[in-house]
């Protein structure tokens, strides 16, 4: 756990620019799902990826800000219950920070597993627990409806964070250069 909550300039910049990316993906790169009114959001793959690279603070902030801003742009006002849940999901993804070897250029079976376990736990807490409870508390929505919605969101977000996130991490690991590995070929 050491140092994963440390806030550096890089954390803040990653949160700010990450939120812009999140909002862009959230608004323009979503896939319609079979259930009307819900989308499969590729943005959560990005949140997972940033979580592993920059930690819980960055990923939590970026999901919160990104979701709030794209809601505000599309609907005029953020849907707080889901915005908060997004923030929590991102925050928990960030617990994978410093638990994988991706910065050393390795993202193998063990790392994939670590990331995905954490990611699934994050999505479960955010969408099966927090979002429905907030919906009930804030909007007094019927319990069975919000839990059904929550389960749907959990399934689709866990799949996206799993697939897109893992793909991005694999691609990133490939760009990492090892110590003293670069020399000119003549």
């Amino acid at each position, binding site marked *: 756990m050491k140092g994963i909550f440390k*806030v*550096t*300039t*890089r*954390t*803040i*910049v*990653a*949160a*700010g*620019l*990450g*939120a*812009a*990316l999140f*909002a*862009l*993906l959230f608004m*323009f*790169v979503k*896939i319609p799902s079979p259930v*009307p*009114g819900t989308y499969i959001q*590729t943005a959560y793959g*990005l949140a997972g*990826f940033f979580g592993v*690279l920059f930690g819980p603070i960055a990923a939590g*902030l*970026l999901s919160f*800000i*990104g979701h709030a*801003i794209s809601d*505000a*742009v*599309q*609907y*005029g*006002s*953020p849907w*707080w219950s889901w915005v908060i849940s997004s923030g929590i999901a991102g925050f928990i993804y960030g617990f994978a920070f410093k638990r994988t070897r991706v910065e050393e250029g390795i993202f193998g079976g063990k790392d994939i597993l670590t990331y995905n376990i954490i990611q699934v736990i994050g999505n479960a807490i955010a969408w099966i627990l927090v979002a429905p409870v907030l919906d009930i508390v*804030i*909007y*007094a*929505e*019927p*319990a*069975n*409806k919000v839990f*059904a*919605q929550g389960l749907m969101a959990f399934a689709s977000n866990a799949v996206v964070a799993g697939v897109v996130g893992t*793909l*991005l991490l694999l*691609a*990133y690991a490939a*760009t990492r250069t090892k110590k003293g590995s670069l020399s000119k070929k003549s």
Partner: protein
Amino acid sequence: MKTKLFSYNYENTPIHNLSGLIKFICFLLLTFATMYTYDIRVILGMLVFSVIILRISRIRFSQIKVMLIYVLIFIFINAIFTFFFSPEHGVTLYHTRHQIAPLWGNKALTQEQLLYQVTLAFKYLSVVPLGIIFLLTTNPSEFASSVSGVGVPYKASFAVSLTLRYFPDILRVYNDISQAQQARGLEMSVKAKMKERVKNSLMIIIPLIFSTLERIEVVTNAMDLRGFGKEKRRTWYCVQKLRPADYIALAVSIVVTLIVAAVAYFINHGRYFNPFI
């Protein structure tokens, strides 16, 4: 191409001239008041109040048309969902049952459900103008200082400012990458199959994300070189001094919030307005 996130345009209205911090506090107060109450009379009152503010701030219908359509679609789908899952939810909330018409099985349409769903729909609808007013009348430069003004740590607030600053850049890069890839033979038009299109859009997202990672390095360097984060606090270039109008606005919002609370406490004895008992 739309580049800025919000189409903020300065106009000389009392609302535009308020300080961003005050507007943000009022926005939060009124939003929470609206979210708390389940009294259709209060909610309609809030709606009328916010529409009047909308008019005062000279926001034109054309500016908010698209948002409104989105919201209405959302509310409509949500209503159908709610009814489909819990046609008896109103009955459990209000503890009475006034049937209007029988439906399938032992389910029926009740007055309670109708009141619940209408209240819910207006509740959703009435927070929208509040958000729109805040967004369209506040200079984006003031966002970060306003957020920080209500007690959010300044570093987190600055992240908001960075998002607003770099969104247009990232959107432009997104378009450029997409065009550059098409010029090298990537098919993006509707001619391509669904699976191809998903794969191809990954070919754009990946460079977009990686170029953003690089941008993060540059911006971090630039900010470090100019001393970001060295003190426990920071001052802001874009804050407005509070003027009498700001105190009036704040007072009005507090009064409105108190009225909402009073109605709940003294008249309804709780969140819900229950005309059935």
